[in-house]
């Protein structure tokens, strides 16, 4: 009987823990995947770089228990099944402001950042940001411009991560979203590019 008395509070405690809102990891990953794809453009030799989660872009990762629809970022396409709108968790970014940021990121990526990743000057940080890991690889005259591009990019990224969290009414997800994006940037990095592992060490893909 005494054991039961002890069991009850611990059960209650466990119950409290399970109340925590579940972060839709799979949905977030899929959303991040598309976002990153749109920014980085079609990766060259995509087949050669398997995703860490094991799923390809066509097959949903096994983590997705209730993925009911395809995620869309297009500004024109509007329609949601109203039955699902209330209960399914939604990680989408269709706000014009965020789309403008995404477009700007895509332009910056192809014009400025991609060559810097190629040269090894930049790396993907494990916090979802871009890191100027080896400025010595950038010609001196372009080094401050590179630092500025990195600062601009990171400002945009922080805004995107935050806005996705807030748009879902869950500002506390910002960190989880940032982590999801961090994994996705690295997953879609091209061979030879640098990234930071979870321990903070730099590795070349």
């Amino acid at each position, binding site marked *: 009987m005494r054991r039961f008395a002890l069991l009850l509070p611990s059960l209650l405690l466990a119950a409290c823990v399970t109340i925590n809102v579940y972060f839709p990891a799979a949905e977030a990953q899929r959303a991040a995947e598309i976002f990153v794809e749109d920014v980085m453009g079609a990766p060259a030799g995509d087949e050669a770089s398997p995703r860490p989660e094991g799923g390809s872009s066509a097959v949903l990762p096994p983590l997705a228990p209730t993925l009911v629809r395809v995620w869309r970022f297009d500004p024109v396409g509007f329609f949601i099944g*109203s039955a699902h*709108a209330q209960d399914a968790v939604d990680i989408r970014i269709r706000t014009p*402001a965020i789309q403008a940021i995404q477009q700007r990121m895509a332009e910056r990526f192809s014009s400025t950042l991609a060559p810097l990743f190629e040269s090894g000057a930049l790396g993907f940080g494990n916090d979802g940001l871009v890191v100027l890991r080896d400025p010595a690889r950038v010609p*001196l*005259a372009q080094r*401050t411009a590179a*630092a500025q591009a990195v*600062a601009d990019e990171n400002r945009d990224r922080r805004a995107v991560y935050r806005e996705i969290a807030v748009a879902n009414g869950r500002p506390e997800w910002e960190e989880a979203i940032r982590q999801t994006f961090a994994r996705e940037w690295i997953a879609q990095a091209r061979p030879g590019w640098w990234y930071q592992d979870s321990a903070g060490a730099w590795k070349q893909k």
Partner: protein
Amino acid sequence: MRPPLSSHKSRVPRFRVGIFRIASGCALLFLLLAAVPTAAAGGRLQVERLSAAAGSAEGLQLRVLEQEDGGLALHLQVREARLPALEQSLRHIEWSCTIRQLPGICEGPLRLAGRPAGRLALDLATQASADWRQNGRRLHLQQQGGRWQVELTRIPLRWLEALGQTRFGLLVNAGEASGRVQLPAAGRTDWRAELRLAGFGFDSPDGTRAAADIAGRLGIESRGGQFELRARWEAGEALFAPFYLQAPTEGIAIAARFATTGSGLDLRHFEWDDGERLQLQGRARLAPEGEAPSLRLEARSGDLDGLASAYLGGVLGPAGLADLALQGQGQIHFESDSAGLVQFDLQLVAADARDPRGRFALEGLSGGLHWSRQGTVESALRWRSAALYGIALDPAALAFRSHAGRLELKAPAAIGLLGGGLTLTQLAWQPAQAGTVASTRFGLALHGIDLAVLSRQFGWPPFEGQLSGSLPEARYADGRLVFAGGLRMDLFGGTVRIDDLALERPFGVAPSLAADLRFDDIDLAPLTRAFGFGEITGRLDGRIRDLRLLDWTPVAFDARLLSDRHWPGRRRISQRAVQDIAALGGGGLVAGLQTRLLRAFDDFGYERIAIGCVLRDHVCRMSGIARRGEGFLIVQGRGLPRLEVVGFRRDVDWPTLVQRLQGATRPGGIRIE
């Protein structure tokens, strides 16, 4: 340096000399060569180690061979020569020369680590001198008045690679020096150099300090452990992150007096003269790695525009102000020590700062901003005109006081704007100090802001009324500006309360604004007129909760607007307003009457009007007074003819809705058929 080829083990020596202690390093060679007559006639001299203040040599071997013509052939081998002052070490030096008679000049090829390294000539006269040449490079060493003097012609600075790396952590990768170096006299450490540098370049391993194609003059004098430097930088580019700089055509004059202390550097005085753009002087104590340097500097610029474009690109760019336009004059006094900021005093004269993206503009900024960690100092700053997101601010003056490390507004400051005024009730700033983070807080009050002017400014429908209120405390942290308190708008006879205001990234990427709005007793007649929305009489209550604007466009809210049921006056809705409301619902059905019948009346009595919209993810989920069949009741009629407006589409695309609203508020907009 190149790896040694093989170690030359000394064989059985004929002479064995222990350790020489000689004053000057350069004298080493001469002393050795002085032994030539002794070693003449096929002699061989072997010295294990020679050392002097300037350097040391190991494994010296001199062979002297008598030539057929009576001259001598010398062959000198040195296993390793070290010059610690230059962090230099040369290995496997081989030099062969011939000399016709003594005293005379012995000249011949030099090899370093097995590779040809130019030609060396030694004058073994009373006025001893040495001369080395290779491909137009020349090093001439000669004694003058008891001191050795080196003349350099196009000597590669890469020779100082090791010195740069160990002393300054820099990789010297290019450049040549020409000029003259006077080496210390016997028993002294004083030396001086007058050099011309060309194409000088270096880089630090982390890439934060670098230079390329540096050209200029450099004079250094070392006296009693203190150095005097005088330089003129004439060409090239340099990066000391975050500062990147290209030498202006007029050049920059640099002067410094410094001494090395332990592992740090004591910069007792430095000067930087870039004409109008920047005049800088001060002193600094650069501690070894990991410790904050202590610094004291005075900077003055008579051309902030030039200063910004030449010096501040690397600071303003990453801060998101790359294209900030600055103008005017300014100066700053700045002090910091190992504990952090000690004080700064910024003074501006007729300065302008304009953001080309129109987020802010300050013109005719004059006065100062003075903060000190200790004591009390006062300053005042005023502007002639200013604008924030296109809203013009009248001229104003702010008086500041810094007391015990806290900079604050001395007295509330009134700033006129939009026909009314803003009072900055408090403003306090504290920099990050040991154990505390930087904090900024301020409070403001608005009074009598003319909404008509504000509406015109932002291209809104012509609202009429006044905005006032108090936001007694605003905190800024982590890119988020949160206001305590609220604002009150007196609008069309009623009030709108704005609470829980928060701004994110106010001057950054996609600024966002969050707020809660409450409406009370807004007179519908002037409101609908302002919107050109037909006409409704009555009073409006309601709220917009969790409003969020991103880039000043609504992205989310939970709104519910409804007519005041208890308002005693007439409640009528015009035919046109009915049509517009119905149109908003996307072809919502007007029940109880046929459309044609509707047109027969100018207006209708109503009991209640209510409309709600929860905006999420571009979709507005509409609601009304109550459910009505499949739809929701928006307008509940009263009297005869009784009118009911029922909406059927619950989910409406927000951009479409906005379009319709704009259409409805334009004369001759959407019509229902």
